């Protein structure tokens, strides 16, 4: 009796028509939640384009892409994005020099060498490394890594791209390791068995069978890693200094696109001023750079999932 009442209260005895209509209503609600993702993308693109178009009404695109000085807040303003791009690329390059070898070695180890139980424990622990707040990594870069580097490289300035890049590299190691490992584990077992049957060691199997077999997945991991490094903000804002300089020397202080946005946001900039618009123009460049890498990565991962 009470069970029947419980069922009734949940609408189980309601008419079929009512239940079908309720189903349809729920589907509309769920769909609109799904559309929030589409809406977010559309909103990001339109906000960036809208504010940037106001920016490009003042600044010619030619100056923006060729001028090597970026001083949008000075009285004599220059709007060349190149110094910010050079800073971003240099930091990203340093980060990849750390993250790609370390991430790949860890992925090979976890996928081909580590016993099952060890992998189950080590992988989540490694992923903690990617969960550390970036502002904490910034502290680490500025107050621990830089003093250490200054002992190795005399004359290294207190703010430099090298230490920021190294720390960002460390930060994306778990990400690269995790995506690469997924790709390697998607390589079918029979390929490894074939290799072992020919008398190859685990290392030979890993390097000559698994890695080539997972190539598009590894490429995706690296490319998504690049996109992460380009978009990283707080480490560079804290440790790389905030002076836009057109240089590719990692020992110099410089500013990345992301750090510039932070620098402007820290000040109290009036809504609608050229400085306010400049962060959206910088954001647009950042978005385009990461979008290209994300799309390449997306199609590469889809390929390795379908390959076997």
């Amino acid at each position, binding site marked *: 009796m009470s069970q029947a009442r419980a069922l009734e209260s949940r609408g189980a005895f309601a008419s079929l028509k009512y239940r079908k209509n309720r*189903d349809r209503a729920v589907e509309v609600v769920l769909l609109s939640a799904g559309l929030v993702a589409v809406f977010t993308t559309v909103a990001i693109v339109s906000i960036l384009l809208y504010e940037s178009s106001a920016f490009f009404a003042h600044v010619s695109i030619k100056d923006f892409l060729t001028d090597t000085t970026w001083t949008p807040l000075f009285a004599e303003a220059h709007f060349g994005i190149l110094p910010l791009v050079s800073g971003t690329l240099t930091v990203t390059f340093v980060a990849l020099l750390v993250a790609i070898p370390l991430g790949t070695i860890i992925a090979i180890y976890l996928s081909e060498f580590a016993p099952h139980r060890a992998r189950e424990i080590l992988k989540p622990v490694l992923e903690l490394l990617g969960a550390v707040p970036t502002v904490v990594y910034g502290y680490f870069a500025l107050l621990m890594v830089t003093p250490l580097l200054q002992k190795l490289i005399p004359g290294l300035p207190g703010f430099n791209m090298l230490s920021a890049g190294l720390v960002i590299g460390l930060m994306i190691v778990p990400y690269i390791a995790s995506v690469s490992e997924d790709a390697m584990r998607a390589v079918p077992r029979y390929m490894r068995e074939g290799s072992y049957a020919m008398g190859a060691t685990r290392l030979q199997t890993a390097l000559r069978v698994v890695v080539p077999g997972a190539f598009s997945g590894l490429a995706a991991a690296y490319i998504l890693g690049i996109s992460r490094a380009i978009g990283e903000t707080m480490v560079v804002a804290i440790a790389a200094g905030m002076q836009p300089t057109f240089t590719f020397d990692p020992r110099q202080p410089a500013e990345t696109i992301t750090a510039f946005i932070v620098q402007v946001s820290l000040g109290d900039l009036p809504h609608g001023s050229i400085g306010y618009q400049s962060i959206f123009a910088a954001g647009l460049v950042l978005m385009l750079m990461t979008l290209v890498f994300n799309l390449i990565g997306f199609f590469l991962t889809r390929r390795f999932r379908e390959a076997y």
Partner: protein
Amino acid sequence: MSTDVLMTLEEIRSGVVSRKRFDKIFALLGLLVLMSCLGVLALLFFDLVRDGASRFGWSFFTNFPSRKAEHAGILSAWVGTSLIMLVTALVALPIGVAAAIYLEEYAPKNWFTGIIEINVTNLAGVPSIVYGLLALGLFVYKFGFGQSVLSAGLTLALLILPIVIVATRESLRSVPKAIREAAYGLGATRWEVTKDHVLPYSTGGILTGLILGLSRAIGETAPIITIGALSFIAFLPPSPVNGHFPFLNFEWLTSEFTAMPIQMFNWVSRPDQAFQANAAAAGAILLGMTLLMNGIAIVIRYRFRKKINW
């Protein structure tokens, strides 16, 4: 048979030995690299605790920021962070779960669903500061929410939405088809199947996703700076709960705020050495909270996986 083509037994043996040696060396190298990465994490945490040790104490949690390092505390920062997390969780959980249910249980396989899926994947890769720019243009100015707790909470909710969606989808997918078929066989509608059978089994995965999302949101600094969080706030937002009817008020949503990572960033970027101890202490607390949340997520995932035997 000419012997100069084939290797001698000795050569084969030495070849096997050296290949096996390389194999062992690489296994050690892999373990070493992995351990040194984890070692850095441990080092980082201990260093923060050591540098910030002089600041830990009750007053650090109950003091407002101050111009004097030894009196400066994180009261407005942790209250701000808690309120933002509340908004983020309340927004991201229902939307994320609903979107995931739609994609996993309802969506037909067509180009339109494909667009939503590509969007979710792409949003996961958008740099967090771009979310900040979105929030600045949309929430702060277009919608007129201002530099408020509400703007910050909504921004971080959008930021962690992909995390919640992906985690929820994975746990929905792991519910066996047989359970759905049994419910359909008894005449349940699609929503009844989802609500009464699929969702209860996926609670663990959904919770894990939400906690991981929140642990990401709690440390996010860049988007909140972009919105215009202030780092020197010597007041608290109005309390969400009060003594008279209707016992809840929503003024705190529109209050200006600061948050833990902002406070830490402010202290790190001061030239004065004394504030670096504050930064370290705040960082240790922040890192401790993130690690704790991740730990809880791992435990929940593990327990649920153990409890359910299909």
